[in-house]
């Protein structure tokens, strides 16, 4: 694992909108997530289900471990985490989709062969597209969808991050969901 300070720095730069930081962060976070998943399974071989939210949280905490990320309060953490989750997933879906389509005999490396079905990938890509358009209309609604859908945060947690009431989050979510549904069903 990279030095914590490097990751902390990357996270800080990412937060400031540094695209390059983002591209360097992704493999780190992704790798960490995978490592976590495997460690988790090695610990408990029983037939259990991973709690994905716990997994993501743990991965981020580990990444930030050691350093003193003063900026990393709860709200920032969630904001960054959900944005990263969206990127990881969409990125994955895109590659998966591409691999499926271009596939003729060549094999996807084992590590990448996550069992995303085609429809999931396609659905995720469509959602990502629509989310991009939603952000142009309503940045906050986009954030809420990211946090709720991509990082699995509860309405209450989102309310805390955004410093608004849970009722507002719910209202925004309802509209965002309806809008996205409309966009995707076109």
């Amino acid at each position, binding site marked *: 694992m990279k030095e914590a300070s490097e990751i902390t720095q990357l996270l800080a730069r990412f937060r400031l909108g540094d695209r390059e930081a983002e591209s360097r962060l992704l493999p780190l976070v992704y790798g960490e997530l995978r490592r976590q998943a*495997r460690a*988790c399974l090695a610990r408990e071989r029983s037939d259990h289900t991973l709690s994905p*939210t716990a997994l993501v949280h743990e991965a981020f905490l580990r990444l930030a471990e050691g350093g003193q990320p003063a900026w990393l309060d709860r709200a920032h953490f969630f904001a960054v985490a959900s944005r990263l989750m969206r990127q990881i*997933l969409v990125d994955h879906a895109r590659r998966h989709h591409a691999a499926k389509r271009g596939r*003729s005999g060549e094999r996807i490396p084992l590590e990448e062969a996550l069992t995303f079905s*085609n429809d999931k990938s396609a659905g995720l890509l469509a959602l990502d597209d629509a989310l991009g358009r939603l952000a142009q*209309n309503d940045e906050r609604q986009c954030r809420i969808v990211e946090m709720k859908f991509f990082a*699995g945060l509860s309405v209450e947690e989102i309310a805390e991050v955004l410093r608004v009431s849970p009722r507002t989050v719910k209202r925004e979510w309802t509209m965002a*969901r309806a809008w996205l549904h*409309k966009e995707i069903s076109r």
Partner: protein
Amino acid sequence: MKNIDRQRWAQIKSVFEKAQELKLESRASFLAQACGDDAARRSEVEALLDHDRRAGSFLDGNAASEIGVAMASASRLAFSPGEVLSGRFRIVQLLGRGGMGDVYETKDLELDRLVALKFLPHDLAQHPRALTRLKREARAASALNHPNICTLHDIDVHNGQTYLVMEYLEGTTLRERIGVGAVREPPLPLDTTLDLAIQIADGLDAAHSKGIIHRDLKPENIFATTRGHAKILDFGLAKLMQEEAGSARPVNGAERIADPGDAPTLSVDAARLTRPGAIMGTTAYMSPEQIRGDILDVRTDLFSFGLVLYEMATGRQAFSGSTAAVIHDAILNQVPPSPTHLNPQLPAMLGEIIRKALEKDRETRYQHASEMRADLVRLRHGPNRKHDGVLPAAVAPEPAREAGKAGVRRHRKLMATAGALLLAGLIAGAFVHFHHAFALTSKDTVILADFTNRTGEPLFDDTLKQGLEVALRESPFLSVLPDNRVAATLKLMELPEGTAVTGEVAREVCQRSGSRVYVAGSIAALGNRYVLGLKALACATAETLAEEQATAGKDNVIDVLGREASKLRKDLGESLSSVEQYDTSLKQATTSSLEALKAYSVARKIMLKRGSAGALPYFQRAVEIDSTFASAYASVGVHSVNLGQLERAREYFTKAYSLREHTSEWEKLDITALYHNWVTGDLRKADEIYQQWTDIYPRDDPPYSHLADDRMKFGDYAACVDLERRGLGLNPDSVIDIENLGWCLMGLGRMDEAQHTFQEALSRKMDDDWLREGLYAVAFVAGDAKGMESEAAWFEGRPDFKFEILFYQADAEAFGGHLRRARELTKRAVDSAARASNLEGAAACRIQAARREAALRNVAEARRETNEALRLAPNSPSVEAQAALINAWAGNEAGARRLEAELKKRHPQDTLINSYWLPTVDARLELARGNSAGALESLQTVSSPLDLGSPLEDQPNVCLDPVYTRGDAYLAAGQGGPAANEFQRILDHPGLVLNCTTGALAHLGLARAYALSGNTAKARAAYKDFLTLWKDADPDVPILKQAKAEYAKLQ
């Protein structure tokens, strides 16, 4: 709508949010007012509101969980050599990665052989039902045990990963032999192609003849072993995977005809169908009918096989393209290049075979794999293997055939025509079905699916379904499939009890149980309100027949549900007048308390799993929460009866009866009848109610069951059999009815049929104490000591029921004159019942023992046991009635009179007390006074067949007290002939009397009667019968000594 300006977005948002908080019905006027003449804004908001409603579970999950699961399974997939799975399979090496999952070469340590482990995508493990189906289908194919079908040894789950344990094969798949895409191997040698093709056809033929269709035949699924054998892989997987991926279309019953070994196909929920980019099987090898989503039969495999053959022969895919749409279009509309054109080396006949297999219309295609095989064999072994060859037989034009083969041909043609006719019939059926209004008939039943509860509030789980059931059951038009039949169907589907009956499962239950429609409900939160939805779907097509939706507050959810149910009834075709006549408001019919309804529905669920004892506390909880919940009171009563706690039952039935106006129509009938049956004992009134019930709800089985029960009490066993059969016709899985049918048959002396009935129940995995006692009784009558023993053994470790068998065994001992052992067993029975806190059970043991002692003329013992019984159950009319009889018999006239007076006062309308017990008691009292004429007069009211009736619910053997008493009275009157008749009647009903002491003593009574009428020979024979029966009886029983003395005098 992209990138609209901010101000406009804010306007839309504001209107949307306000409209969204309003009730559905007030939205339109609000929108009109809020948007004014801005039609675009209005339509945008309307679209959003519409999508909000339709969004269903859209984005409900979270993507993080997707990646979590995906990563977990990616990690799980990586097994290293040496790793041992399930303590049995040691991984040797990864063989390959299929589209379906990884395949490992594995050592089965238990059987010391190599096997292949094939892992399926993780999704499957989360669908136990799918897994079960997979097992069934795959096993069916594997059970063919055919050399050209890969054997499947087992299916198991490891860390949530489903894997197949398959025959280990050395070699390669056809895909590897042929090559992929641009990387093509040279075409296979012709002989190899033909050898493999013949074997594939052979394997297909074997599977098809059992009705198993592969559905996904392709080079990846065909293995060519190093020894040159072809093996078809993955039978049964394709269909399942398609369903999992959500691409399966609803299929109606027709496929089941083509595919008898198959379960009905699942429906796919709408969300999955509408999800973008749903995948569609293995595109390039699908048949045209598969692409169209038609009903499939075996001929789909022949088309796919044709494509495989094409590829083997030419090294090229017949249909290819960059997208599924292009390939689909080609399969549907284009003719591929002729194989002989691509590979001039090929014999013309092979080209013809392929062409015939690839006929787009399956009617003109090969009809059977065997036909194709025959042509391939002819080609392989015939002289004309070059391009100038003769046309293959099955593809040859008619005139070319030899006359001698015409018979076979005709036969085939007949078959094909029959198939075509059948299909035409189905198509016509489907046409009628889709083009005429869907009409339910009086034979159609309806299934209730479990509600989809999206509120996150567990209070709604089960509760709403329960409410809906009450509401729909009020309809004489609809017949809701009873719980126990749903449970039985789930069992057949190899699903655990308590499996959620959701859309797909409901549909399969619906189809399997022969129902027409299933009703699915849903509830979701909408702000602080709830949206309640009801939907009726056709089982065969999953087509929506009717839909209702409404919003409700928490306090009126039940009310709204009731109203929606009424509307749904109308939607489904019930007449308005019927809906209006039978339309108790649901809140009134059940309870206005969601919590109480919840307890009630939980009780009903537990009832199916753990019986009355488990359910009772929940029903009690329901009445604690809502003290006006009539049906819950009635349920406490019913389950108390089942547990032998009649006193509590009477208390609750009375309460339910007093609240009966607060119930739906059928519940009112139920409660009123229960009240008369158990509280007033007025069976004639109860019967009237049941009759009324069957008039209004002719498809409800409970009234038949009750009517049958009452016929048994009145001694009309033939009518009982008839009624039980009618009840079972409506609800074949009712264990109580099956048991009662068995007992009624015993009443008619049809012991073999009774045994068969009980056994059948057992074979259907129904089991309980009453059934076991029935089998014990059958064994007793047959003199089968071993059978008795094995049935008695069932009661070991069942403390609640143990006393029943002990007390029954006590009777059996007394029947053989082993009084000491009988007393001992009685004591154990009483103790056992007391330990199970069943005082009424203990009382039943004691009073039966008292009757035994009275019959054997052990007067003091009889009175003692009677007093004990009365002490244990001071308010039980049946114990009191028997106690009166025994007191009269044992010379305690005062005691008998006191009890009689009590019974008359407290149970003036009780049919059995007044027309069965009291006359018999009176007769005994008259006899005690030496007034035999008075006794006989008294017994005149207990005429046949009532005197053969089974008045006691809790006692399997029927002592026939009126008959026995009448026999005694005739003896006392010195009328040997009539006395003999009476005792003979007892002996003629061994299936009724079973091991009751009067059954043994009837021999003695008969002997005395014959002796009295001077028929010494017959008397001697009867004495002998008795003494034989009692040959190893306790020697000191007074009645035995008496009998011996009488017999000796007769010599």
